């Protein structure tokens, strides 16, 4: 337990549920933290003298005579340059054997950036993955999740993107991370020689689920320190936000709130938005980019968690296995980067927008042809060509193992278009084909 000199100790608990306790206390502030014996808790409701606390690790074994000490402040994080290279638990305690971090103590979950003080994001993040750079270009200050079934290699792809992103700091918020995944991230960052710019807040499957609720706010408070105070480009990785939302549901359920769709709390949208909206480009150069993971169940994006996420984030990267080529691809239909138009054709070649859309449209024609074939119909000559195109497009561009620069991606796309289609079929603006089309007239 932390220092409790001069602090009033309460030791009569009136009510205990699975996640909360209620006791009589006065002069307690909403969202204030408290120790209940050696467990951290937070004030979630005040009704006269009755104060209800949510205990992050749960109430198993809590006695009606447990000692409650209010800390007089919400959850905080001490911020300084010393955070760099360190691993912490959800409360910000070191788990790497290193010393406590000294620094300025800041409340987590702080206020929002004034929208008029933001800058429009316009710096491209190159990842080398064409499914991203070509079709769903990322921009600093963006917030975007991977949507993936749990058997997809989302953490690997995300880590890969992170290392290529040329960020000054990478902050990993791990929620319900398996121990293997935790070690994977650690080893990967170590091997990349990037450990000194990584900061991690980790809640593993071995920790109580409700603790996860602190992780994103801890990560984002650290991110704001580096982005605002140090003008750094910060990349925040949050995995897995589905497990975060599950923890929200556990708490709201135990507090007898009326659930809305899929047993999720009615405030899920606002709860998630508060985190994701921390992504920002500041005029002074600092930025926070959030790349998250939202695992799906059976590819269902209409479930409340991915659905609310999609309404909040600036697009999503949908991973799926293309059985035709036997590789994981970034699905061009369900994936989207909403900030891509800030950079496409401006920071990239002028044909980018047109080529990208033409290829995806033709890929959609291939999907129709495939349905036709699956329904047992003959394919037209055009259908056959779209299928051939789709296979090559998938293999040489959509697959996550592709590593090219953007100009090469565009050139590869042009060659595929020329090989399989006529100019009419491609339907690209004439001024653009005049410049880049090298195939038959």
């Amino acid at each position, binding site marked *: 337990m932390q220092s409790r000199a001069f602090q009033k100790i309460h030791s009569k608990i009136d009510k205990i549920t699975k996640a909360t306790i209620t006791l009589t206390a006065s002069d307690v502030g909403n969202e204030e933290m408290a120790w209940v014996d050696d467990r951290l808790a937070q004030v979630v409701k005040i009704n006269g003298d009755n104060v209800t606390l949510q205990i992050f690790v749960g109430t198993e074994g809590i006695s009606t005579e447990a000692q409650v000490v209010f800390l007089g402040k919400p959850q905080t994080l001490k911020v300084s340059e010393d955070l760099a290279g360190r691993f912490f638990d959800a409360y910000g305690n070191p788990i790497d054997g290193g010393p406590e971090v000294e620094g300025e103590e800041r409340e987590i979950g702080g206020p929002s950036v004034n929208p008029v003080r933001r800058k429009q994001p316009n710096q491209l993040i190159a990842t080398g993955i064409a499914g991203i750079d070509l079709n769903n270009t990322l921009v600093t200050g963006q917030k975007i999740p991977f949507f993936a079934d749990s058997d997809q290699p989302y953490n690997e792809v995300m880590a890969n993107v992170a290392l290529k992103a040329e960020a000054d700091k990478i902050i990993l918020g791990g929620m319900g991370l398996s121990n293997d995944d935790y070690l994977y991230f650690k080893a990967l960052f170590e091997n990349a020689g990037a450990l000194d710019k990584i900061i991690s807040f980790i809640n593993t499957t071995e920790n109580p689920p409700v603790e996860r609720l602190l992780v994103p706010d801890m990560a984002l408070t650290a991110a704001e320190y580096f982005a605002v105070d140090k003008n750094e480009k910060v990349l925040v990785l949050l995995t897995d936000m589905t497990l975060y939302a599950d923890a929200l549901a556990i708490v709201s359920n135990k507090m007898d709130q009326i659930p809305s769709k899929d047993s999720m709390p009615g405030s899920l949208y606002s709860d998630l938005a*508060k985190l994701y909206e921390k992504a920002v480009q500041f005029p002074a150069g600092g930025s926070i980019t959030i790349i998250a993971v939202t695992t799906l169940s059976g590819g269902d994006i209409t479930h409340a968690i991915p659905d609310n996420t999609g309404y909040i984030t600036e697009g999503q990267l949908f991973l799926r296995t293309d059985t035709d080529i036997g590789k994981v691809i970034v699905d061009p239909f369900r994936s989207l980067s909403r900030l891509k138009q800030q950079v496409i054709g401006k920071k990239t070649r002028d044909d980018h927008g047109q080529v990208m859309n033409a290829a995806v449209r033709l890929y959609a024609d291939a999907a129709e042809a495939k349905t036709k074939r699956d329904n047992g119909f003959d394919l037209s000559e055009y259908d056959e060509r779209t299928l051939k195109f789709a296979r090559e497009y998938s293999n040489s561009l959509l697959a996550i193992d592709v590593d090219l620069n953007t100009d090469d991606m565009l050139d590869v796309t042009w060659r595929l278009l020329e090989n399989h289609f006529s100019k*009419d079929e491609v339907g690209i603006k004439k001024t653009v084909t005049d410049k880049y089309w090298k195939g038959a007239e």
Partner: protein
Amino acid sequence: MTTGKVTGVTANLITVEVDGPISQNEIAYVKMGDERLMSEVIRINGNTAFVQCFESTRGVRTGLAVEFAGAMLEVELGPGLLSKNYDGLQNDLDKKEGLFLKRGEYTSPLDDEKIYEFTPLASPGESIQPGHWLGEVKENWVNHKIMAPFTLKGDWKLDSIVEKGNHTIRDTIAVISSSDGETKDVTMTQRWPVKVPLKAYREKPRPFRLMETGYRIIDTFNPLAEGGTGFIPGPFGCGKTVVQHAVSKNASADIIIMAACGERANEVVEIFTEFPELIDPRTGRKLYERTTIICNTSNMPVAAREASVYTAMTIGEYYRQMGLSVLLLADSTSRWAQALREMSNRLEELPGPDAFPMDLSAIIANFYARAGVVYLNNGETGAVTFLGTVSPAGGNLKEPVTESTKKAAQCFYALSQKRADSKRYPAIDPQESYSKYLESPEIQAFLTERSGENWVEDVLSLKNRMLRGKEAQDQISILGDDGVPIEYHINFWKSEVIDAALIQQDAFDPIDRFASVERQEYGLKTVKDICDRVFNFDTFEDVAPYFKKMINSLKQMNFCEFGSGQFKEFESELKITLNEKEVA
């Protein structure tokens, strides 16, 4: 003044023990040190007031003092509203200090120091009605009317008015008196409660003109009336915001009010960044000169999100009183409904479908009913056109917000996931979407006058062809390419021509983003002509390549300046293609 003390708090719901009279929806301030947290009374039970706090309630504790303001949530109206960026409670965001929004910091919506040249429009002795035009000032390029208080009751007349000259908004510019001998000083500003419709007009007729948006799928196929209502439901990422932004840039309105209600901050930043640069195609003035932005993004307090749409509507109604045509855009009204839901759940009210409040339908209907075209007391016409977006959970249109809105709005622009997936933008579903105005006699008369006798009929015939194209496509996918008559392929491809040439429109292309009425008339005629032709093909395999060639020409035309040399080149290319298959 009634005061009180905090007795409890859960999330942003605070209970207060009060010592005097209060009213429903009255504003209260919870005093935390030197911070004053603005809140609104949403339920009263004996001496206990339930207030929803517009700010974070972190640190709120029992015993804190509360002051009641004696008024409901109000906006301040007057010159200087345009080009402003407000939060949902009409705080001027540009006046706030620092990078982060500071809790309890409220900034004045108008500029006290700014000098306006006032020109009187009324003379002493005139009898005065609420909203009477007393004078005007130039606000950007808009003639901003200075109006008699909307709250006047009984008989009033103008005692005196200042001469043409420079004044600040706080100066008294007129004195009016009532038959009861009461006198009032009138300044350029007044206050109005946002939840109360502003109705200082004589009559609200049925809409009789169109709001042009520059989007073919709206203007040609599903027109939005000036003073009309419409909504855009659609799954995430299908293009609601892009449509709204495009409309805000191109619409034939005098004033644009954009309410970013619980959506992304970066989308608003895009407007902050672009509007000072972009030119209004009709007036040649900068877009931001006619625009006010109400910005309550998803990370800003939930209760203020609910207020933001009302703030926006009230400002819109205010400009309508000046005889202007206002277009109000709200993205997304679902977030507003969710704010209502969060509060209703916290109050432990009996939940309706999907845990939304029982009276959701009525709330939405009342809001949409505030739009409309009006005849003012002086015979002038003003309008508020409202176009909202809806974000249905799971993209499923059978959910309470979509269903309630469908009852309230006259135009329905349904976005289709499938169209968005295949990048057919705008992804407005040509089969599902409708505008009831196309059937309204007033609008039909307007269209006939504007675009000729056959316009409505031609539009309906193309809409019908879209349906037939869909049917043909369904048949082809059930029976196979060679299992259907060639006619089916032709019907399908004719609908593809309509889709590619008229329905799809690239919001990011400098030319294609905006189609003038003239251009839309040309487009409809050209495509109708193609569709009315009889084509002969030997095999179904010849159909697609032929039509694709035509589609390519039509698309290229869309990318060219209307009537330009290039445009004409593609036009003759199209003619050649057509003549190839000319059937005698």
